[in-house]
C-alpha cells in the first residue's frame, strides 16, 4: 500500500492563552505540534503498513519551520516527507489549500508512485473547519470516507470503520481514496531514539510553485473566497433564567416555553 498522510503544524492549543485586553489569542511563544487528528491518521496508516506492507509519505503545506512537524512524523512511522511551501501560497483558505495540496499530490506521485490511500486528520485543531480533507477528495475526484477510526487494506479496496452518532459503520471503498481520521481507540506509537536519529538525518524535499503545475489564481489570498476577519473568544453571558417551580413537570413546561420563544425548538 502506497499511502500519503497530509498533516498540518498547528499551535498547541492547550498552551494558548487569551490576551485579557484584546480578547484575542496570544500566539507568540506557543509551541507547535503536529495536528492531533493527523497523528491518529499517521498511526492508522502505520498499522496498515505493519500488516500489509507499503510506504508512508508525509506531506505538509507551510513555512520552513513545518519541517519540524514532518520530522516528528518520520519518527513514528513515516518513510519520507515533503514540504510544500511558497510565498504565493500564503493566506490560503481551505479551498485554496486543498487545491494546492491536490496539485502537490500529483507532483509527489510522479516521484513516489501512485497513492492507494490519502489520509488526513478529521480537522485542524486551530481552524476546526474539517474541510480540507473532503475538498482534496473532490479536487482529485476520489471517493472519500470521513470520521474513520480504523481501516484494513485489501486488494484494490479499503475496509473503513467509521464513527457515527450512534456507534460505527463499516464501509468498503475502492482505492485510490481519501480517508479522514478522527480520534482512534489506539494512541500513536512512541518514537525510539533510533527513529529520532533517522528522522533528524532525513532529507526533506521542498516543493515550491515552480515544481508542479497549478493555477496560481486559485492559490493564496487571491484564490481564497473566505477570509478570517477576526479571531476572538466570545463573551460568556453569565446572566440566565432560573426556573423554579413546584414540580419537575411544571418546570419542564416553563423551560419548553422559553426555548420555543427563542426558536430553539419548533414543535408545540
Amino acid at each position: 500500500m502506497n499511502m500519503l498522510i497530509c498533516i498540518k503544524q498547528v499551535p498547541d492549543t492547550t498552551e494558548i492563552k487569551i490576551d485579557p485586553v484584546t480578547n484575542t489569542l496570544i500566539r507568540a511563544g506557543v509551541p507547535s505540534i503536529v495536528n492531533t487528528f493527523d497523528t491518529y491518521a499517521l498511526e492508522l496508516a502505520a498499522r496498515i503498513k505493519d500488516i500489509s506492507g507499503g510506504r508512508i509519505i508525509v506531506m505538509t503545506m507551510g513555512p520552513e519551520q513545518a519541517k519540524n512537524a514532518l520530522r516528528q512524523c518520520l519518527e513514528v512511522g513515516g518513510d519520507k516527507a515533503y514540504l510544500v511551501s511558497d510565498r504565493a501560497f500564503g493566506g490560503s483558505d481551505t479551498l485554496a489549500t486543498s487545491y494546492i495540496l491536490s496539485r502537490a499530490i500529483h507532483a509527489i506521485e510522479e516521484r513516489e508512485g501512485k497513492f492507494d490511500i490519502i489520509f488526513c486528520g478529521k480537522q485542524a485543531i486551530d481552524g476546526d473547519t474539517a474541510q480540507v480533507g473532503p475538498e482534496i477528495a473532490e479536487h482529485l475526484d476520489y471517493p472519500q470516507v470521513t470520521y474513520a477510526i480504523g481501516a484494513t487494506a485489501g486488494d484494490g479496496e479499503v475496509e473503513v470503520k467509521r464513527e457515527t452518532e450512534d456507534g460505527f459503520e463499516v464501509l468498503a471503498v475502492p482505492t485510490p481514496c481519501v480517508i479522514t481520521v478522527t480520534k482512534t481507540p489506539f494512541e500513536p506509537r512512541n518514537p525510539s531514539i533510533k527513529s529520532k536519529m533517522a528522522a533528524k538525518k532525513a532529507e526533506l524535499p521542498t516543493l515550491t510553485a515552480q515544481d508542479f503545475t497549478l493555477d496560481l489564481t486559485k492559490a493564496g489570498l487571491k484564490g481564497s473566497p473566505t477570509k478570517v476577519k477576526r479571531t476572538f473568544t466570545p463573551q460568556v453571558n453569565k446572566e440566565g433564567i432560573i426556573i423554579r417551580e413546584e414540580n419537575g413537570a411544571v418546570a419542564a413546561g416553563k423551560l419548553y416555553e422559553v426555548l420555543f420563544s427563542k426558536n430553539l425548538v419548533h414543535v408545540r
Partner: protein
Amino acid sequence: MEFKLNELQQMAQDTAREIATKEVAKYIDIIEETRSVPKELFGAIADAGILGIPFTEELGGIDAGYIAMVCAYEEIAKVCPSVSVSLLVCVSFLEAVKNYGTKEQIEKYVPAGIQGDFRGSLAFTEPGTGSDPKQIQTTAKKDGEYYVLNGTKRFITNATYEGPILLFARDSETQSITAFVFDKLGEGYSTSTPWDAVGMRGSAIYDVFLDNVRVHESCILGRPGDGFPILLGTVAHSKVALCATFVGTMAACYELAVKYAKEKMHRDKSIGLKFPSIQLKIAQIAAKLESARLLTRRLAEESDDRSNIEHMKAWVGMVKAYVSDISVETNLLAMNVLGAYGVTDEYRVERFLRDSLIAPHIEGVSDLQRIIAGSYILGTDDPLV
C-alpha cells in the same frame, strides 16, 4: 568544558522523557500495588531504545555513552524510580556480559536483552554478606562438565521475571568466586515472597534459593575464579545508573515543591512569595539537585573510560555516597515545603522520599563507598578530582 548535552544525548533524554510521561505515568499505581513492572510497559521502554543506550549499534544499541544513559534514567525515575531500578539491573546484566562474556555469550544475550526479550538479574548479596562479596557462601561444585549450585541470594531485583541471572558463587575447583550466567525459573531455582521495603515497591526484591541447580561450564562468565573483579566492575556501572535514579527523585520532588509553593495561597498571596522560610528551602533544594545532577553526569563521563578501573571505582564510591545521602536530605526538604500535605499521598512527594530512603543502603552502603574513595586517594598518587 561543555555543560550542554550533545545531539544524541539530548535525543536519549527527550525519548526517555516522552516514554516516562506518556507510558510510565499510566502505570504508577499498578506498579505500586502489584510490586512489578508490567510486561507491556517494559516492552514499550525497550522499543524506545532505552536499554540500548550504552551499547554499540552492532549489538543493537545506539552507542550514546553513559551521559545519555544517566539522562534517560533520571527522566524515568522522575516519574517512577522503581521502573528505573528494574531497568538498570537489566542493563547492568547486559553490561557484564558485554564486558566479560565470550563471543557466543554476547551474541546470545546482549541483542535480545536490548530488544527487551527478557529481564536480567544480578545476584551476589547473601544473608551473610552484602558489602563484603568475598564472604560469599553459595557453592558451585564441579560435576563433569557441569557445576551444581547451592545457596541463597538475598535482595535480588527482577528475580521472578523470565530471563538470565548473573550469579556469583564459590566454585569447588578454584575455591574462589566464579560468575555464572544461566536462566532463572529452571529446575532448582525458587524465590521467596518479596521483601517489604519502605520504598521502591515496584522493583521488588526477593531471596533466591538454589537447590542443586545444574549449569554447564559454558555458563561461566570470564574464567573460573575471576568472579570478584567481574562483580566489582559490574556494580561500578550499576551504581552510576542508581545515582541517576536518585537524582530523578530529587528532580521530581523539586518540581512538586515549586509547584506547591507557587499555588498554595495564604491570604491571597502564594506561600512561595510570602514566606522566606519556603524560599530558603526551595533554593537549597535547587542547589542540591543541580550539584547531584552535574556530579552524576561527570561520573558518567568518567565511566565511559574503562582504562583505570580502580580510579573509576573510587569516583563511583565518592559520588554514590554523596548522591545517596543528599537525595534523602533534599526530598525531605521538599516534603517540608508541602507541610502536612507532604506526608499524604496526595502530592506523591512521600513516595519519592520513601524511594530515596534506600539509596544510602543499596549497591554499597554510603560509608563503605567513602572508605573506598578515601583509601584510593590516600593510597595512590591520584588525587581523583
